[in-house]
Structures are given as structure tokens and as C-alpha cells.
């Protein structure tokens, strides 16, 4: 019995990671990860945080500083590292020296990201680089630039046969994104029990910002939610089911079609009610079937060319 179950488990494991996949989907993941990380590096002056007075650093443990090689008073050095990280990410985006560039970018972002939160903690999970660092390390071991790369003649995505080499890296990156919601669910349950998923708690979360900064709301969605027993009850149920269920997107196309758009709605609702912008929401693009989209667009172009009179 147990041998049968073990065999079944092994089969499902192999199916999850090694079912032949499309080169285009992995190449798209490479481009998404690099473009997003470049956008975040460009948007925020992380290096400047190294230049704030040392008095701010009293909570930063010396061992944590050594863990990330992050020390106060070196904004110039950090600016250079930021510039190098941008160059490495551009190389990943273009598919030039991809694996070496991905590893270099991962290590530099691993060093830079904790500067964002060193005032108070060493875990910059929600600041835009968590998925990037993990994914760049994975990409450094993957055949992620077989299509859609600069400097070579374009190889049609459909010309490359599906292969297990294109599946496991993408699936790992999708797992890292799914864990955002799975661990969000588990963390609430682990620390606060089912009480977190009560209508009362949803109402408090929804109006928190309007108490913190009164009169400066993006919308009154938070107050509308908190003022309605139906909406807070639905919200509590939706958060429970969505956060618990998102991990099924790894196994099911149907789940991807429902839960990925639902995740976008979830983040927009949080933005409009709690005014929290989750910069990693763009990593949901990793769940899009880019190979299918490219195929459709290619087919449309071909049809248009055939329809055009000579």
C-alpha cells in the first residue's frame, strides 16, 4: 500500500516539475523577473539608505550586517553596486550571458535589498526583491534564453520542442509566488487562529488607514466594506478561500484561470482600502501562458499577411 502511494507521489512529483514545457514561457519569465527588478531598482534610491545617520542603525545586529555585507556610511559603494545590478539585469532581460548575469544580479540584490528595512528588521520580503533573488538564482541554472534573446536571429518559439528543461524553473518561480498567499494564510492561522478570518477583523483592516492618516484616502472602499456586515463576511470568506486555494494554480489550468485574476482583484482591493501597494503583484504575470499568446499573435500576423494582396 505504502509502496503504491510512494510510487504515485513520485509520479506526481515528476509530472509537476518535469512535464515538457515551452521555451517561450521560461523566456517570458526571465524577461518579467529582470524587467520588474530593474523597475524597482530604478524607482527607489536604496543606496541612499546606507547614508542615513548611524544613530538609526542601533537595532541592526552586527551579525546581520555581515550576513548581507550591509554597513552604514557607504552610499557611494552601494550606488556603484546598484548600477552594476542594473547592467546585470539588463543582460538577463536581453538574454546575453544570461546565467552568469542572473547569478551576479541575484547576489547584488541579496546584498542591496535588506538596506530597505535595516532600520527595523532583516527581512525585506515585501519590498520587491524576494521573488527576484530566488528566481534569478533559479534562472542561473536554467536554459532560459533559448528563445526571445537579443543578438541572434529570432528563433520561433514553436520551432523548439517542449522539454522538461523549460518546466522546472518556471514551476519553481510560480511556487515562490504561490507561497506569498499560502504562507499569508498559514501565518494568520498560526499566530491568531481562525479569529483572523472574522468579519470584524476584515472591517478593522479595511478602515485602519483612515484612522492612521484621516482625510487622505485614495477611495472610501475601506469605509464601505467596514460599514457592511455582508461585505465583511464575504471578505473574510474570500480571503480564507483565496489564500488557501492559490497554491492549486501550480497543478491546475482551471485554477490559474480563476485565481490569478482573483489575485489581481485582491491586490487592487487592498490598495484601494488599506492603501498598501504590493510591488510583487506583477509577478503574477509568471502564470500567464505567453507561449499561447505568442502563437496566437503569430497566427494572426500570418493570416494578415496571407490576406494582403500581392
Amino acid at each position: 500500500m505504502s509502496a503504491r502511494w510512494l510510487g504515485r507521489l513520485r509520479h506526481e512529483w515528476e509530472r509537476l516539475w518535469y512535464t515538457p514545457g515551452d521555451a517561450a514561457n521560461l523566456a517570458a519569465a526571465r524577461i518579467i523577473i529582470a524587467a520588474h527588478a530593474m523597475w524597482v531598482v530604478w524607482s527607489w534610491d536604496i543606496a541612499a539608505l546606507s547614508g542615513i545617520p548611524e544613530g538609526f542603525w542601533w537595532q541592526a545586529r552586527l551579525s546581520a550586517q555581515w550576513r548581507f555585507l550591509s554597513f552604514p556610511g557607504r552610499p557611494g559603494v552601494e550606488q556603484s553596486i546598484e548600477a552594476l545590478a542594473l547592467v546585470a539585469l539588463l543582460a538577463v532581460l536581453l538574454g546575453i550571458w544570461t546565467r552568469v548575469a542572473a547569478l551576479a544580479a541575484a547576489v547584488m540584490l541579496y546584498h542591496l535589498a535588506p538596506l530597505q528595512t535595516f532600520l527595523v528588521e532583516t527581512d525585506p520580503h515585501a519590498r520587491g526583491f524576494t521573488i527576484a533573488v530566488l528566481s534569478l538564482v533559479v534562472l542561473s541554472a536554467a536554459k532560459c534564453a533559448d528563445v526571445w534573446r537579443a543578438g541572434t536571429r529570432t528563433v520561433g518559439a514553436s520551432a523548439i520542442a517542449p522539454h522538461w528543461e523549460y518546466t522546472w524553473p518556471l514551476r519553481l518561480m510560480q511556487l515562490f509566488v504561490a507561497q506569498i498567499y499560502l504562507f499569508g494564510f498559514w501565518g494568520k492561522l498560526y499566530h491568531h487562529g481562525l479569529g483572523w478570518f472574522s468579519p470584524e477583523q476584515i472591517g478593522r483592516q479595511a478602515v485602519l488607514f483612515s484612522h492612521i492618516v484621516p482625510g487622505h484616502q485614495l477611495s472610501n472602499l475601506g469605509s464601505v466594506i467596514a460599514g457592511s456586515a455582508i461585505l465583511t463576511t464575504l471578505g473574510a470568506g474570500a480571503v480564507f478561500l483565496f489564500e488557501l486555494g492559490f497554491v492549486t494554480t501550480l497543478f491546475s489550468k482551471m485554477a490559474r484561470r480563476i485565481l490569478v485574476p482573483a489575485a489581481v482583484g485582491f491586490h487592487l482591493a487592498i490598495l484601494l482600502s488599506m492603501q498598501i501597494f504590493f510591488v510583487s503583484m506583477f509577478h503574477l504575470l509568471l502564470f500567464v501562458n505567453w507561449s499561447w499568446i505568442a502563437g496566437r499573435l503569430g497566427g494572426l500576423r500570418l493570416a494578415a499577411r496571407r490576406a494582403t494582396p500581392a
Partner: protein
Amino acid sequence: MPNLTAIADMARLVVFLAFVILAVRAGGMLVRSSGGRRRAVGLLVAFSVVVSMTVGAMQHEMWPFTHWPMDNEYFVAEYSGLRPVIVDEKGIEHDLDLRALYPIDWMDLHTWLERTRRRNPEAFARVAPWLLDKIARSRRGLEAGGRLPGDRGPFAARPRLVLPPAWAVDDSLGPLDVKGLRIYEFHANLDEPPRAATDQPRTLIFEYIEP
């Protein structure tokens, strides 16, 4: 007595290095087209799954493997938070546009101030002159050029907490000579409708006035 926190920090570094080494090993086998590639990939996948799931299940930080604790806080009805205000040369208090603190994120400074208040209150006096100078320069920059520091345009990634502007070039504050910074603790009831900031009970916890 060994420093367990330092040991834990080094253990976290070792886990990340192991992740990198497994990736380099698997990547290297692509180049050498070695038969062990599938096994090396299997090891990298298994390591990633086991470590990331363990970190999540145990709810321990091991960044970049993380348990994503961002929105797990549980709120009771009574809520206390911190609110900064600036003081002009006449001693009048004004709202602070929290974007003026850039590159420091207000939510981080909020947590820092709460911990500093409890464990190291003298630290505020050491950083307050710098903070005040930063705020004053930001205000002057806005008055002169219409932009706050760190404003990289509409396409830049927003900070974690999206803050609508409290200041504008043509606001009623006019040229503002920022002379002081006060941090208040305010109290609110999350089960009641929000009150205006001026109606919330508050206590002064930090103050710095330029000499």
C-alpha cells in the same frame, strides 16, 4: 554563552550560499552536458521546496526564503499609532507630508520610533537634527521646483504605503520655515467611524526644536 542570534544569522547565510552552490552546480552541468544534470536539477528543486516550505511552516525569517508575514497582524478595536507633525518658526504645528522623509519609509520609521521609545529613547535626539534638516530641505525643494525628493515620476514603483500628498506647491502653508518635529501617539477605535486627526486623543512622545 554563545551568541545564538549571531549563529542563526550565519546559518541563514549558509542556507542561501547552499542554494547558490546547487544552482551553480546544476548550471555548470548544462555547459558540460554531463549526464548528472537531471540529478543536479532534482537536488536544486528539492532543496528549494524543502527550505521554502519549512521557513513558511515554522514562520521563521530566512530571507530570501521568507514566510511573508506582511499582512498577518491582528487588530483589536483599540489602536494606538504614531503621527509626526512639524513646527514652524511661530510654534504652529502643521501636517508632515510623509514623502518628505524619503528615502526612509514612514512605516519603517514608525516601527523604529516605537522600538526606540521603549528600548533606546536617547537615539531619537541623535537622529532628530538630520530628520528635521531632511524635512526642511524637502519642503524647500517642493516650494522651489514642485517636486519632493525621490519623486521619479508617475511610472516609478510606489512605496509600500501609498500616501496621497499632504503638501503641494500652491498649498496654503506658503514658504514654510521648518523649525521643529514632534511625534505624537494617537489613539483610535477601529470599530468606530474615523475621526479627524485633531479630534483624536494624543500624547507627545518625542520632540525636537532647532536651537
